[in-house]
């Protein structure tokens, strides 16, 4: 997917240049990221994998403009990121839904903040609910939903403003294996339809391989890029794609970079 033709379609190039970030904490400085560089082409999907505390969430926050790096910088479509941009969609590990709003109210939330007119908002809402298969649940409160449904709502909300880039931080890690598998399949289908650039943090090597065009391995703290491995599986993919011959050597390669840390 690298090198999608230029012009209007080439939205969503992410450039991370030598990003370093240190948290000043009461118990001393904590070096979370140390010189991370990463290029993601428009429409490309990159999986970020690395041990706990390696700064994956921090890196996503920097890309989203929620945290300013101490050194280096991030650009989306060659424009430096200095503050959050609603056209960069975010899905967190927890759904982060407004419990006092219905499903529709939550999906509509970014549109309201952006000042969309009522008519446009409702039209977009319909599309989004259909996109994630929540048409029947518009009036339901988050507390009535299963974990998988909540994460669908979060996904629809992240897609509301037609983001150029979608950042997902272990989006399905709190879900059971079956739900997770199904949502991954849907996410993939969604990606093929929206042509959104994606960066997804995951702890699962098969998940990374299934979803991404490239798997980037981060080192233990402070986070650095250890490996950048192309997946090279054709799309569209199905769960059965993971049975193909190229998968095991690739999984082994990813694991090789993770293992010295895990030991």
């Amino acid at each position, binding site marked *: 997917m690298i090198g999608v033709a230029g012009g209007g379609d080439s939205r969503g190039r992410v450039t991370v240049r030598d990003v370093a970030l240190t948290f000043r904490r009461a118990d001393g400085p904590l070096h979370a990221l140390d010189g991370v560089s990463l290029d993601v082409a428009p429409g490309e999907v990159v999986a970020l994998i690395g041990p706990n505390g390696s700064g994956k969430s921090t890196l996503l926050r920097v890309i989203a403009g929620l945290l300013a790096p101490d050194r280096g910088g991030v650009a989306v479509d060659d424009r430096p990121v200095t503050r959050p941009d609603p056209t960069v969609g975010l899905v967190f590990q927890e759904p982060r839904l407004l419990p006092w709003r219905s499903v529709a109210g939550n999906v509509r939330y970014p549109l309201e903040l952006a000042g969309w007119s009522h008519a446009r908002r409702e039209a977009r809402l319909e599309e989004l609910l259909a996109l994630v298969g929540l048409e029947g649940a518009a009036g339901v409160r988050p*507390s009535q939903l299963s974990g998988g449904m909540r994460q669908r709502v979060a996904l629809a909300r992240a897609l509301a403003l037609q983001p150029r880039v979608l950042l997902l931080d272990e989006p399905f890690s709190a879900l059971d294996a079956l739900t997770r598998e199904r949502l991954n399949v849907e996410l993939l289908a969604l990606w093929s339809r929206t042509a959104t650039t994606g960066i997804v943090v995951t702890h699962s090597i098969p998940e990374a391989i299934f979803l991404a065009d490239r798997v980037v391995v981060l080192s233990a703290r402070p986070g650095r890029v250890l490996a950048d491995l192309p997946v090279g599986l054709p799309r569209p993919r199905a769960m059965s794609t993971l049975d193909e011959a190229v998968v095991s050597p690739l999984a082994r390669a990813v694991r090789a970079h993770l293992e010295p840390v895990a030991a």
Partner: protein
Amino acid sequence: MTRVGALTALAAFAVAVVAWKAIVVVGGLPPFILPPPEMVGARLAEAVAEGTITPHLRATIVEVLLGFAAGALVALVIGYGLARSALVERVLSPYLVAAQATPILALAPLFAIWFGPGLESKVLICALIVFFPVAISTMVGVRSVDAGLLELGRSLRATRFQVLTTLEIPAALPNILGGMRVGVTLAVVGAIVGEWAGAREGLGVLVNLARGSLFDIPLMFATLVTIAALGIVLYALVVLVERRLVGVR
């Protein structure tokens, strides 16, 4: 309220009345110590009919409502400041606690001297007494807003005002209304205390009259029942608002 709920409440009320009657009969208490419930009921009906209670009730209601509105409004603003600014909290909290620790009973006569026996002194006392629970519950409520939701708001570039209206207020509402439940009942107490310290009318004045110059103990009890009923009605109103605004989450 459900049918069952209403029946339960009615039954509990009946039990209380019967217990009251039993105490009077078993203890052989004379009416000037504890009048029996039917005597108080009859006196209440009579007082309402001859227009003894209504003007006093009206005066107290006006004091409570104005005082509650003023106190709660200031408390919302200050409570928000306490939650969002460490400086505001450091500067203000000693005075807030001191004001709360000072007995309202001691302040009431002072206010009567400063502001006279009219509406103002009572409204001020009500406002003062309502202030603390509402301010503290607002502070706690605003602080309870989930950090993840605030980050979501930031990522969507919500303005300061949008954060307030779409995140902070809805999240803090259950706490705020809890503080208002306490506040509204305290406001009734504040009005009565203020009226005791000096007023021309109000249920507190009527209690004083019935106890003193009139020496009409059944009337005094009838007034106390009215005060309690006022407290219950106001409390129920806040609960109603709470149901409408907070509902099921």
